[in-house]
């Protein structure tokens, strides 16, 4: 048993000693570094460690939560008291009950030793290579706003009075840049990024080249004419939409009537070309773990398949309320947050067409490479959306001039029903949570420009 598990055990005991009928403690320790480079120099170098504990206390069917950074004997006792007091202030909820222990299958390979093996100068070089690759790609590439490398290695331990006990370690690394291109009297930005479990899994040249290519592609962008037309969503945009859909499939939103998918189980909600899974154990998935934020085993859940809505995502609370079992879908933003139902890794099924074939299939339309304003332009209850976008015109089945300052609008279920084909090459994208998706061809969407 690690020192983290020992802290978790102590916190559980202190909380029941403070009067709680049940308790659960989640302890995490995170070590990481972030390198930001600009103009061939290191702009900042951060080294960080954070350790904390979050305790859920039950008083019968009342729940409260407390978190803190003081893991000393006295600190944990004080925190246990606060968790117990918080529970006393909550209302009774018959479905609030501690998760029961279950057999957890190990999930090796989540931690990449290259994080420890690569010293600071080596990851600084990686970030500098990202920036340099972009800058050297084209004379119109006038700068890089920032190029970043970051990694972290997290250890998690959980324990509860109901007998839940587990721990794991997982690492992640990413790099990105925002490249600046100039031409035709305007500046354009382009994002390039890569995700892996450690620095050795990142390709700095590819990341730099992607940012440069995205910025250069936007030079001379004008406003498209308003129309309804076929649209191809690139992987980053498809991922953002998949994230919105995943949010609507969480049982809490569904049970409280705040989802466009509420009451539609087994109904047709998409075309057959669109299938969506939540897979908390995908070996490639950045969010993979052996168990979720309340110790329930992670698993793969079919959400939308054959055009029909197959399942929602449940944590223990929403499962109790539904009379079903958890899909291992409790998540937290670290020890500071209560667990709540959320996606792990969303996986959009791949199709068979290359990007060129998708564009050819679209014929005349718009290729959307960026969307903005998702947090304000989407009604999560109804699924009605109108978001800012930029991309390229598709003419005669091929990419033509760049376009910006337009909106794409519609409704999520209508959009899914209009998905005509999925691309053959999926990619992991850190937007909309953690999503693997290919580009998607949507038969018709409303474009509003000039």
């Amino acid at each position, binding site marked *: 048993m690690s020192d983290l598990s020992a802290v978790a055990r102590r916190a559980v005991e202190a909380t029941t000693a403070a009067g709680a009928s049940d308790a659960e403690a989640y302890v995490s320790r995170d070590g990481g570094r972030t390198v930001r480079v600009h103009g061939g120099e290191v*702009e900042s170098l951060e080294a960080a460690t954070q350790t904390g504990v979050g305790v859920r206390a039950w008083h019968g069917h009342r729940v*409260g939560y407390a978190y803190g950074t003081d893991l000393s004997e006295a600190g944990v006792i004080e925190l246990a008291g606060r968790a117990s007091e918080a529970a006393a202030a909550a209302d009774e*909820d018959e479905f609030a009950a501690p998760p029961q222990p279950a057999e957890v299958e190990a999930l090796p390979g989540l931690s990449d030793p290259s994080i420890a093996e690569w010293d600071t100068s080596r990851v600084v070089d990686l970030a500098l290579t990202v920036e340099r690759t972009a800058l050297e790609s084209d004379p119109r590439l006038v*700068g890089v706003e920032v190029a970043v490398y970051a990694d972290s290695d997290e250890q998690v331990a959980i324990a509860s009075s109901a007998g839940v006990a587990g721990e794991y370690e997982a690492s992640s690394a990413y790099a990105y840049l925002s490249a*600046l291109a100039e031409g035709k009297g305007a*500046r354009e*930005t382009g994002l390039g990024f890569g995700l892996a479990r450690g620095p050795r899994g990142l390709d700095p040249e590819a990341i730099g080249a992607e940012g440069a290519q995205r910025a250069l592609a936007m030079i001379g962008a004008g406003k498209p004419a308003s129309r309804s037309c076929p649209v191809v969503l690139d992987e980053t945009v498809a991922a953002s939409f998949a994230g919105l859909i995943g949010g609507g499939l969480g049982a809490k939103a569904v049970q409280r009537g705040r989802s466009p998918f509420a009451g539609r189980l087994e109904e047709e909600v998409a075309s057959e070309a669109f299938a969506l899974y939540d897979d908390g154990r995908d070996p490639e998935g950045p969010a993979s773990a052996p168990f979720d934020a309340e110790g329930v085993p992670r698993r793969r859940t079919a959400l939308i398949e054959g055009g029909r809505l197959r399942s929602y995502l449940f944590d223990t609370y929403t499962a109790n309320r539904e009379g079903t079992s958890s899909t291992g879908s409790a998540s937290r933003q670290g020890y500071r947050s209560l667990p709540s139902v959320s996606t792990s890794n969303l996986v959009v099924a791949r199709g068979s067409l290359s990007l060129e074939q998708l564009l050819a299939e679209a014929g005349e339309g718009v290729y959307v490479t960026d969307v903005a304003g998702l*947090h304000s332009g989407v009604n999560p209850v109804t699924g009605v959306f109108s978001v800012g976008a930029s991309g390229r015109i598709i003419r005669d089945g091929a990419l033509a001039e760049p376009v910006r300052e337009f909106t794409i609008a519609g409704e999520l279920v209508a959009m899914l029903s209009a998905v005509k084909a999925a691309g053959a090459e999926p990619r992991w994208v850190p937007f909309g949570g953690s999503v693997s998706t290919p580009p998607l061809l949507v038969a018709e969407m*409303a474009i509003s*420009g000039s």
Partner: protein
Amino acid sequence: MTELIDQAFAERVLSRALANGGRFAEVFAESRRGQSMSIDERRIEAVQSGAEEGAGVRVVDGNTTYFAHVDGLESAELERAADEAAAALRAERRAPQPLQAREVTPLPIERRPEDVAAERKAELLRELDERARSRGDEIVQVTAVYAEARRQITVANSDGLFSGDDRTRTRIAVQTVARRDGTVETGAETLGAHRGFELLEDDPGQIAEQAAAKSLTLLDAVPAPSGSMPVVVGGGFGGVLFHEMTGHGLEADHIQKGASVYVGKLGEQVAQPLLNAYDDGRLPSEWGSDAIDDEGQPTQKTQVIEGGRLTSYLYDHLTAERDGVASTGNGRRESFRHLPIPRMTNTYIAPGDSTPEEMIAEVQRGFYAVSFGGGQVDPATGDFVFGVSEGYLIEGGKVTRPCRGATLIGNCLDALAAIDAVGDDFFMKTGICGKGGQKVPVGTGQGHVRVATMTVGGTER
């Protein structure tokens, strides 16, 4: 005020941070405490309380910043952070300036929220729930959140600064869902300030009724139109338009990297002469106000646009040093785990002399955006987008039907220059602003403002 670390120890940490050289070193210690709870389906839930302590140490050498942060305020931990921040440097030891304690008066808090019983906060949430539901049976759901947060900070740097602040913010937010037949609409409203529980003593329930009224109004909404047209923007949170389309582009880090459309525009006419705008971190009790910024610099009122002319950028310590100017007190950080960067505090367009009625009466066909769900900008290109949470058509000089699903898009410089009327009905609202992965509380404000032409992206077919 309580010092989280004493002066002598702060000096020791700074000395260690400069052990391998460096131009500037800083230690930032923080204690964060908070409580929050919510009501949903008429039940009090998610009652939680947090207590975190920690410190961040940074050393600056040339154009590079070395930063390390640790949890806890134990001496050994802070010394470890100083050593880590200094680890990559290879130059001669430098001695920090002797520290000089500065007198700071934190913003006044009348009633400490942590002294108010949790049951009283739960009662408040029940009242919000009742008040929203009192607007009729079409209000089918109400959720409300209460949150209080106290941040005590002590900051010391190698230029001899030793300062601190004690900040308490309190906020409530209400969201309602209204349903009629198959139509579902949401409404939201918030109330927040750099104040204690006294903020909530004067009829906080009215925000619940306002949220409910918004969602009920939208039940009659038609899909929003699309196209270019005059847009009248509401007061208060309407100021988020200026926050996004100008405020971010004036933050000096964007300027110095050439990633802002306002580069080289200082002193130039960027708006019509009727426009005056400020960033003011000293507005009493305001959500985005603090006595000092997170680098220990006193906050100030900075005029950024005077008579339509661009007059100032917003600086933190490092960007000010680079431009050879004084910091404008805009160095802010989400917590001890983050580096300070130039951020807005309370940003607003000063009151003008039009009335909302006048500016609407002059519009034949246009859009009235009363409030936004939020917005986003790419400062480098100037492209922005805003989701309208409450909007109406303007037809023949009158506000007619409510619209759903409207988004405003455009480019900063064009839209700023197109502001042709500023209202006298000024007020402020609260927001949470995200930049570089850091969230900080900001105020936005204005009276009604009219933009002569803007693109509305609606869902009307």
